[in-house]
C-alpha cells in the first residue's frame, strides 16, 4: 500500500509537470497582452512596449518558461503582474472561501443525496422514487446561476433571511461563516445532489437484486440492516467514484458560484486572472488544481480498499 501511494504521488509530479508545460504553452499562444491591460485605455504603443520590456514578455518562449521553472524549483510561483503581490499570497487569501464552499457543498450533497438514493432504490417504482428521479432531472437541468438568482431573490431580497453576497472568515464566528455559505452551497450542491442520488439509486438497485441480499432477507434480517449493512456497503464503490468526480467538478462549478455570490475564492481569482492575462496567477492556480485533481483521485482509489476487502494495493 505504502509503495503504491509513493508511486502515485511521484506520478503526480509528472502530471503536474506536463500540465505546467501545456498551460504555459497555451498561454503563450493565446491572444491577449497583460502589458496592454496594465497600460490602460489611454496608453500608446510605446507605453505598452515599455511595459513589455520591463516584464520580460518579449523574451523567447523557452527563456520565459525556464525562468518560471527555475523560480518554481525554489518554491516561488511568481508575482502577479498587476498587483505585484506573490501568487502564493493571493492563493492563500482565496483558499479558505473555496475550501469552505466545497466542503459545505459536499457535506450537504452527501447528507441529502445518499439517503435519498438509498430510499428511492428501496421504494423503487413508488411516488417517492419518481419524485427523486424528477428532482434529479431538474437538478441537472437548472443552471447554477439561475438557481442562485432565484435563491437570492427569494431568501435574501424578499425574506431577508440570508446575505446576498460576500464571505466571512471562520474566525469571525461560525454562524456568520455559515450564513454566507448556505445559499452558495445550495446553489452549487443541487446538481451534485441530483448526480449522487441518481448514482446511489442505480447502484443500490443493482446490489439489491443480488443473491446475497435475498439470502440476508430470507434469514430474517431487519430491512434497515439489509439496506445499510449489506447493500449500501457493496454499492459504495460507484458512489465514492462519482463523489470523487464531483469534487473535481466542484472546482469548475465554484467559479460560477463564487462570481454570482461575490465569494473571494480561487475560482474568481482564476477567472479574473484569465480575463486580464495575469499569467503567473493562471499558472499557479492551474498547478494547484492539477494537484488537487490527482490527489482526490488517489484518495478515491485508496478508499476502494475500505469498502471492498478484495481490493489490495
Amino acid at each position, binding site marked *: 500500500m505504502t509503495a503504491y501511494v509513493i508511486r502515485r504521488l511521484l506520478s503526480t509530479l509528472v502530471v503536474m509537470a506536463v500540465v505546467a508545460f501545456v498551460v504555459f504553452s497555451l498561454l503563450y499562444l493565446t491572444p491577449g497582452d497583460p502589458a496592454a491591460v*496594465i497600460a490602460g485605455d*489611454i496608453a500608446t504603443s510605446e507605453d505598452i512596449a515599455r511595459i513589455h520590456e520591463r516584464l520580460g514578455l518579449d523574451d523567447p518562449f523557452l527563456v520565459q518558461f525556464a525562468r518560471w521553472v527555475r523560480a518554481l524549483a525554489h518554491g516561488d510561483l511568481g508575482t502577479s503582474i498587476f498587483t505585484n503581490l506573490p501568487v502564493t499570497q493571493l492563493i492563500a487569501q482565496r483558499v479558505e472561501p473555496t475550501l469552505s464552499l466545497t466542503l459545505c457543498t459536499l457535506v450537504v450533497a452527501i447528507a441529502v443525496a445518499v439517503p435519498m438514493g438509498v430510499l428511492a432504490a428501496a421504494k423503487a417504482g413508488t411516488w417517492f422514487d419518481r419524485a427523486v428521479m424528477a428532482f434529479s432531472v431538474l437538478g441537472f437541468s437548472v443552471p447554477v446561476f439561475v438557481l442562485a438568482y432565484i435563491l437570492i431573490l427569494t431568501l435574501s431580497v424578499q425574506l431577508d433571511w440570508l446575505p446576498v453576497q460576500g464571505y466571512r472568515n471562520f474566525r469571525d464566528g461560525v454562524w456568520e461563516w455559515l450564513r454566507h455559505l448556505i445559499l452558495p452551497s445550495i446553489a452549487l450542491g443541487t446538481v451534485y445532489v441530483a448526480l449522487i442520488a441518481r448514482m446511489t439509486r442505480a447502484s443500490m438497485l443493482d446490489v439489491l437484486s443480488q443473491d446475497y441480499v435475498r439470502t440476508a432477507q430470507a434469514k430474517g434480517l431487519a430491512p434497515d440492516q439489509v439496506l445499510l449493512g449489506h447493500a449500501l456497503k457493496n454499492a459504495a464503490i460507484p458512489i465514492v467514484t462519482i463523489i470523487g468526480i464531483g469534487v473535481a467538478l466542484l472546482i469548475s462549478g465554484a467559479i460560477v458560484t463564487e462570481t454570482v455570490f461575490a465569494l473571494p475564492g480561487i475560482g474568481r481569482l482564476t477567472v479574473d486572472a484569465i480575463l486580464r492575462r495575469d499569467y503567473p496567477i493562471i499558472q499557479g492556480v492551474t498547478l494547484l488544481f492539477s494537484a488537487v485533481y490527482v490527489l482526490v483521485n488517489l484518495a478515491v482509489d485508496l478508499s476502494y480498499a475500505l469498502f471492498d476487502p478484495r481490493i489490495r494495493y
Partner: protein
Amino acid sequence: MTKQGGYRWVAVLGALMLAAVLGTPIASAQGQKVLKFIPQADLRILDPITTTAYITRNHGYMVYDTLFATDAKFQVQPQMVDKYEVSNDKLTYTFTLRDGLKFHDGQPVRSTDCIASVERWAKRDALGQKLAEVTDSWKAVDDKTFTLKLKRPFPLALEALAKPSSNVPFIMPERIAKTDASTNITDPIGSGPFKFVKEEWVPGSKVVYVKNTDYIPRKEPPSWAAGGKVVKVDRVEWIYIPDSATAAAALNAGEVDWWEQMPPDLIPVLAKNKSVKVENIDPLGSMGLLRFNFLYPPFNNQKMRQAILYAIDQNDYVLGIAGDAKNGHPCYSFFTCGTPLASEVGAEPLKGKRDFEKAKQLIKEAGYKGEKIVIIDATDQPIVHSQSLLTAEALRKLGLNVDLQAGDWGTLITRRSSKEPLDKGGWSIFHTWLVGPDVTSPAVNFAVRGSGQKGWFGWPEDAKIEELREAWFAATDAAASKKAADAVQARAFDFVPYVPTAQFILPTAYRTNLTGMIIAPMTLMWNVEKR
C-alpha cells in the same frame, strides 16, 4: 453547590460556548461608520502614474492629494499649495505648501516630494510631457517652498498641475516617487484624506481605506477635487461584485451603501425600492468613440472616413449605450459637451438627418474596392459591444464588406495595438469610450491628435492638426483658446481621426441614508455622510 445551582452553571457555560461558537463578528468595524461601496471595476494596480485606469485614478483620489485641483467651474484652485506667485515674465512659478501636510507614514510633505512626484508624472502623462518640454527646472527653495522655471511661457502650467483625470499629478513621498515611471509602486503612501489598509486588501474582492485623522482639509467647500476634503466616515470598504444582478440585490438588501456605476437595464429594478436613489452625479459623463486604423485601406482614405460621418446616427448610440435618452444625448463635438471648448464647428456631416446617399457618393469617390473591414468587438464590455453592433449595421447599410469579430476586452486591447495588416491579425475599427474630463481640450484629448506612429492606436498622421494644436497651447486668454480649439475641431471633422458616437452617463445608485455625494466627473468619497 445545590443541584439547581449546578444546572445554572451548566446553562451559563453552555451559553458562553454557544456565543463563542456562533460568534460575535468583526470587532474591527463595530461602532464605526463604515461606507460600503461597489466600485465600477476591480482595483488591481495601485500606481496612478503607470496606468490610466479610472479605478486606479479614483483610488489615487482617496490616498493622495494634489498641488492644485480643478473645480466645477473649470477654474484651477490651490489644494496642497497655500499660495503661489507667477513672475511678470510668466517664466517662474513659486509655490508654498500649506502648513501641517503629512504623509500617512507620519513624515511631513516637503518640496522635494512634490518635485519628484510631478517629475515622475510628467514622464507618463501627455500634458505632463508638454509641461516637461517647456520646463527649465524645478527647484526646492526650502521644505515648504519650491519653484518651477520655464523656458518659455506656458499658459497651461497650472491647468496641468490641476489635471482632474488620468493621469493625475498626485503627490507621493520622494522615496516612492523616485521609482521608474514604468514600474508599479507597491507602497501607496500618500497625504490624502484616506489611508489604504494594505493588510486587508484582497485583490478582486475588497479594498479598505480608513479616515486619515491627520489630514487637515481646506476651509473652502468641496467642488470637484478642489476645496475641503472633509471625511465623514471612519472606514470605506470597496467591495467588488462582478455580477451586476448580485450588486443590485446587495444594494436592495442594504448590504452595501453605494454602487458607483450601474447598467441602465437595472434602473427599473432599483427604482422600486424607496430606500435606494438612482442619480446622475457625473456632470460630464463619458464620450463614446469609433476609431479607424489609418495604416491600411480603406480607412487610410480621408473620404472613406468622411463617409462614415454621414452614416452614424448618434441617437442610436445613445440608446444602445445608455438604454434611455435620459442618460445621454448626442454630442457633435470632439470636446466634451458642457465644457468651455465644446462647439459644433464643422459638425454638419455628423448632425441632422443621416445622408446615406452622400456617404455612398464619398465611398465611390474614395475608390473603395470591397476591401474587408474588421471591427474588433469586446462582448464583455456592453459600451463597446453596443457601439460595435451599431457601426457594423450602419456600414453594412452602405454596402461595405464588414467582418465583426467578437472577443473579450483583453483581446481587443491587445489586437488594437497591432500594426499588422488584416490577414495578420490587424483591424480596421474599434470602439471605446473616454470619460468627459479626458476629452475637454486639445491638450488632453489624445484621440484627436495627428501624431502618427507615436500616437494612440489607429495612428492618424496629420501635420495640420498638430500645428493647430500647438497654436492652441499658445493661446493666452479664453477667447483665443476657444478660437484655436474651434480651428482644431474644424480640421478634425475634415480629417476625421475618429467619430464621436455619443455622450452618456452611467447612473450611480445609493441608499437614501447617504448624503453629501460630490457632483464631479470622478468618484470622490470625502464629504459623504452615512446616517
